[in-house]
């Protein structure tokens, strides 16, 4: 495959790697050395929020509490995101490796993988891989175990505190923050929770050193990232690419020649219209993304796209707070009314105010991020909302 203007990277899926060796070498280092290496690399969480991984580990390590946990968040559910499945399928040992290194740094004896229910078919193979992993830990005389917890089909459980609730046997309803998981997470103990991709990159940095990672990307968005690409594209699939490209470069590579919009970051992300392709950088200085990239060509109605997203949020809202629970429903009814001509086009402005209110008042990321797709689609494709 030709990559005219994008740099393809092969850190994650590169099979040339002996996890046991990396673990052994990492064990020879001090925790401060590991944290400094990670800090130096500039690795930020790959789930979308982008918190520096080194700091998360450092804060948790500093907690005096003896019981701590490390959790791998494998509950990706953002429409358009499917990279973690591929990572877990192809390089599970690297994911476990990232977890045991994290466990060393923070002082955890136990780790958990929270796997989304939709990926249950991965379970037998993952369990088999875990057995191999645990055996090599035993060889290395490292006292650490990983257990896989199955989700039951709830997008909101990807939110870290909802995930803890679910692991504790409750409805997956997000908790108030603070306290943050670094202080009070699973079982109210200090917890590091990282997504699958973040853990693998942390492990790869232990293997290659900070330099190799840091030399990739831009000042704000270091390194490479796994993208899952779907929609109107002849090259749908999973790609590990250097960060810092513009949407235009991306579309040149992955578009079908008629791309009118790219949804960066899934349903909770931002819609970038054609006229902004050139100026928009994919990364923290432009549009951040957990990895989902959806392309739409001119045969698509952006009204339908927005409607589908809103239905998704309406159904996946945990219902705990009013702005999100009622807001999602009202946004759907609102855009339907405008489309049918029952409301004047000005009504869209009221709806935007409602979305803004949700952004400010909703308790967790789900309700807060509805505004992202809503604003960016309504602003950029207003005619399609009306006619």
């Amino acid at each position, binding site marked *: 495959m030709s990559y005219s203007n994008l740099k393809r990277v092969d850190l994650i899926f590169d099979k040339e790697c002996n996890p046991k060796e990396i673990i052994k070498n990492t064990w020879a280092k001090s925790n401060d050395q590991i944290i400094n290496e990670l800090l130096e690399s500039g690795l930020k969480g790959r789930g979308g929020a982008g918190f520096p991984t080194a700091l998360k580990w450092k804060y948790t390590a500093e907690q005096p509490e003896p019981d701590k946990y490390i959790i791998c968040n494998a509950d990706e*559910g953002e*429409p358009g995101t499917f990279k973690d499945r591929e990572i877990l399928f192809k390089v599970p040992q690297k994911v476990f490796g990232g977890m045991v290194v994290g466990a060393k740094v923070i002082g955890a004896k136990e780790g958990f993988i929270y796997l*989304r229910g*939709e990926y249950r078919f991965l379970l037998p193979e993952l369990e088999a891989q875990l057995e191999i992993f645990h055996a090599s830990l035993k060889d290395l005389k490292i006292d650490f175990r990983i257990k896989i917890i199955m989700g039951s089909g709830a997008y909101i459980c990807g939110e870290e505190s909802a995930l803890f609730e679910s692991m504790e046997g*409750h409805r997956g309803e997000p908790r108030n923050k603070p306290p943050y998981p670094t202080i009070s997470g699973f079982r109210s103990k200090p917890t590091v929770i990282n997504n699958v991709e973040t853990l693998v990159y942390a492990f790869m940095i232990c293997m290659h050193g900070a330099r190799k990672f840091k030399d990739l990307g831009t000042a704000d968005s270091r390194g490479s990232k796994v993208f899952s690409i779907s*929609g109107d594209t002849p090259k749908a699939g999973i790609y590990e690419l250097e960060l810092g490209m513009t949407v235009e470069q991306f579309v040149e590579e992955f578009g079908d020649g008629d791309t009118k919009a790219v949804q960066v970051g899934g349903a909770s992300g931002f819609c970038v219209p054609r006229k902004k392709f050139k100026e928009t950088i994919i990364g923290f200085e432009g549009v951040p993304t957990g990895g989902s990239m959806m392309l739409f060509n001119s045969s698509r109605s952006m009204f339908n796209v927005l409607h589908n997203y809103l239905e998704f949020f309406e159904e996946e809202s945990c219902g705990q707070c009013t702005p999100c629970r009622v807001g999602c429903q009202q946004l759907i009814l609102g855009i339907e009314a405008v489309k049918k001509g029952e409301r004047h086009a000005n009504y869209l402005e009221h709806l935007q105010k409602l979305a803004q209110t949700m952004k400010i008042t909703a308790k967790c990321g789900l309700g807060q991020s509805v505004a992202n797709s809503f604003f960016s689609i309504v602003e950029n494709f207003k005619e399609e909302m009306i006619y």
Partner: protein
Amino acid sequence: MPEIKELVKNLAGKHGRTRESLIPILQGVIHEERYISDEAMTEIARELDISAAQVYGTATFYSFLDTQPRGKYVIRVCRTISCAMKGKNLITHEIEDMLKIKIGETTQNKKFSLLETNCLGWCHKGPAMLINDEAFTDLTAEKVREIINQYMKK
């Protein structure tokens, strides 16, 4: 319902009797029964010594923990955007046609239930569906007919 009692007891023996065991037990009931009946919920509540309302509250939160009777094979067709763009409607219609049921319903012989679900994580290979735990991708009307026919014979 002695069998349910037995099943719940076994599951509790396997997963433990703390609150953290609740979801694994519910998942175990689903695996055996395809849905969680009122009796099962009452039994679980008794076994874990929590209120039935708590069991109900947790069970109804999750889309895979059905509290209505379902068929032996639960078909979940993805309705989210990438699959919708690639023609998931065609797939759903094909299944409705073959099984003579609508979304949300179960066939008379209790063999199949048809549901819609949100993104399954196969967006690059849409339309996609799950039958119980197994994923099927790149669906066409033809492919779906073949798959369902296979399951009919099971």
